[in-house]
């Protein structure tokens, strides 16, 4: 649920990074935090388990400048990826305006990607939102591992498994090393703000 403040001429929108456990959602936010440290006024908030896995969410607010005279403030969140945290994922999705689905390119994770997308679809439906209508970007993460001889899912398979009906924009990325992390974020921000454009009088 985006907030448009006509007094301060400010827009706040919520973007959630969703996907299977150990897929690289937190690593995306950590890369963005490092890259744009000068634009981010606060520390990145993380709620982790002792084993360094996301327990509730990561949170990173980022100011991206002005569009149509409005200061745009984007709140980036991740969800916990582990299967057992379904109710927590649903909580984090409340009021979401845009989604990045971070798919794990490892060949052994094919089924987990499909199950996570199914959970996203169901959790959005619980808020009366449709995955085919909300701004959505796919990120096929860990593509850098191809050079290390680790079996990865071909992008065509990922597209077929996850994106054949949705036809959302997709990026081949490496959250750890950086390629396409910023492009993924820029794309979802543009799509999210575009969905609010008619309210920006």
């Amino acid at each position, binding site marked *: 649920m985006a907030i448009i403040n006509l*007094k*301060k001429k400010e827009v706040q929108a919520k973007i959630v990074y969703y996907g299977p456990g150990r897929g690289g959602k937190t690593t995306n936010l950590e890369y963005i935090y490092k890259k744009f440290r000068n634009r981010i006024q606060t520390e990145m908030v993380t709620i982790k388990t002792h084993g360094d896995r996301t327990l509730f969410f990561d*949170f990173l607010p980022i100011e991206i400048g002005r569009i149509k005279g409005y200061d745009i403030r984007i709140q980036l969140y991740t969800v916990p990826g582990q299967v057992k945290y379904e109710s927590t994922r649903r909580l984090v999705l409340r*009021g979401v305006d845009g989604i990045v689905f971070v798919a794990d390119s490892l060949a052994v994770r094919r089924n987990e990607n499909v199950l996570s997308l199914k959970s996203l679809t169901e959790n959005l439906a619980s808020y009366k939102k449709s995955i085919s209508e909300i701004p959505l970007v796919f990120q096929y993460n860990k593509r850098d591992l191809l050079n290390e001889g680790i079996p990865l899912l071909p992008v065509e398979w990922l597209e077929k498994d996850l994106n054949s009906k949705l036809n959302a924009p997709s990026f081949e990325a490496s959250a750890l090393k950086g390629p396409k992390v910023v492009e993924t974020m820029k794309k979802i921000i543009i799509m999210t703000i575009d*969905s609010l454009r008619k309210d920006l009088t």
Partner: protein
Amino acid sequence: MDKKYSSDTDGQRTYVFTSAQLSKIEAVLTEDLLDVGVHSVTLIDMAGNIISTMDNGENKHDLYSLAALAAGNFGAVSTMAGLIGEDEFSLLFHKGKKENIHFSKVTDEFLLITIFGKEVSLGFLRLKVAEATEKLIGAL
């Protein structure tokens, strides 16, 4: 007062707050809460976005992180209430050595976070929050 409107497109709800509406909200937060001695008060939505925030000028909290955590905390506690057969817990309050924090649901979509010290009693604060909530409902 200007008319507030919200839109519902593609399953997305957007809240648009006019200048007049925000001025009214700020007046309620100031007169009903800041003027009785609370340190800061912030109206947020359940997604963790800030609608309006007012403080006494002495505190520099990271309000955006606080709003995100408060919305998450409130959601988690509401879910816990459901698990034990309660609709909700009526009192959400954390006590610190110097600062205390009180959460109060305004409507299903909005939450009021009040930070206060030992100069204000919890009972008095709850009374003032209840009065402010009534006025805020009229402004939202």
